[in-house]
């Protein structure tokens, strides 16, 4: 993938998280005070599955590599 494609992906993800942040904080009183924390929380929730899958994948790779080395 080239730089433009990475930029498009980043743009859409950022736009999505901003929309979710606004919809989650708009109804709260003094929304500007909650914006940053809500934004970070949504980011964490979004990337939890990715981190989880990546961790399992890396663990699996290391485990199989060690197994092969032992053989």
């Amino acid at each position, binding site marked *: *993938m080239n730089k433009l*494609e990475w930029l*498009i*992906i*980043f*743009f*859409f*993800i950022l*736009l*999505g*998280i*901003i*929309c*979710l*942040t*606004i*919809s*989650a904080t*708009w*109804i709260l009183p003094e929304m500007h005070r909650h914006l940053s924390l809500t934004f970070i929380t949504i980011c964490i929730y*979004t990337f939890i599955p990715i981190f989880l899958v990546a961790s399992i994948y890396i663990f699996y790779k290391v485990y199989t590599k060690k197994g092969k080395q032992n053989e």
Partner: protein
Amino acid sequence: MNRIDIKLGLTILLLLITIILPLGFVMNQIFYGFYVSQAQEETHMLSSQYASLINDSTVENRLEVVEVAAKISNQKMLALSDEGEVWAQSNFSMSHHDTEYLFDLIHSADSHHYMTNSFEDSDGKTYIATASHIHVNNAKGHVIVFSSLESIILSIKNVQNFLKLSAIGALFLGIGLTYFISKKLSQPLVSMEKAARQIAKGNYNTRIVQKSGDELGTLARAINDLAFSLQRINDQRREFFANISHELRTPMTYLKGYSKVLREERWKTEEERDQYLEIIDHEATKLTYLVNDLFDLAQMDEGRFNLELKKVNINEIIKLVVKKTSYKAQEQHIRIEYRGELSDKDDIVLGDLLRLEQIFLNLVENAIKYTKIGSITISSVSGQENIKIKISDTGIGMKEEELPYIFERFYRVEKSRSRAFGGTGLGLSIVKQLVELHNGTIEVESIVGEGTEFTIILPKISD
């Protein structure tokens, strides 16, 4: 549009929208239900409080007290007798038609507190209405508390807007991640498609870098193997045409040249003429061998190669081959030794006598060709079901990585060997096919500088 990444991306997006839309509807219903049930609870609590205040009190003007309390708390309330008389009402003006409609609702509710979620008065306003039983001076009636549905609908609309915004946000997030996933998933396929096109164009050096161990990795490795095979076949084909044209051109040049000399009678002595005739005969024989080899292979390819099968004594064939090749070996000062352990009676195979002789003759002649000093040993051992024949030499040998390819047509271990030692590059290929036609196997072991050993195993027949 007709691209795998777009199709994959659109499919994932469709899946995402299919989940978001019903989820949005369900969430909307949950919020609506939550607000309405809360309003129902509140109105029921109030109507119960008003009813207990009226029923439990002995004060004469208790209905006025309740009416004032409802007015102060800005609560829409109505107290009706079962005969239709309005006892008390606050913040509410009701037409005769509204009252009749309310009576109908009370009767259809069948003594249940919650009368309706959508009582619409003559002004067009919608209310949640909850009723409780009351007794005033031995007369029965109901106290009805109303809660406006408009405020709930307004709140729901607000929530709906935020739900829509969050759905759009989720969709954008989904588009971003889908773009990444579809690109990553389709990338190997796209690169394989490009590589396949390059291979189809004849760029056999094209290779795909795909390290994964899944089906995509296997497919990439299969394409790489295919490209490698095609490259080898292409190289062999080129080499074959070069060899064949060379092999044909050389004797043809001799034949043309010497026949011209003879036709123009440019020979000086009878001896010279005989020498020219001998050369013509030798080159014609070479040509015949080459054409015969090619013809045999073509027949084997087409499956039309017929063997004249009969009971054959391997021992006799090997002895005959040794006899035929010993003169040639002596010329090169090489010793041929046969260590036969076969009996003429029991060790019989079902085969074509001439073709079996061709197999051993070819291998022994090859051994003589590539051995400068030393000896050639032929040994035969009889097993329970097979006969094992080994032909080993002390020749120049071959590298281990060359061995899998030596039975392929026109394969040359080294390009220089074909020039130095001659041959068409078809001999071993014919040998292997002939052995397999006799239901046998042939294997080779070789060490560079030490020699080569061919092992043939043929099935034995019992009398």
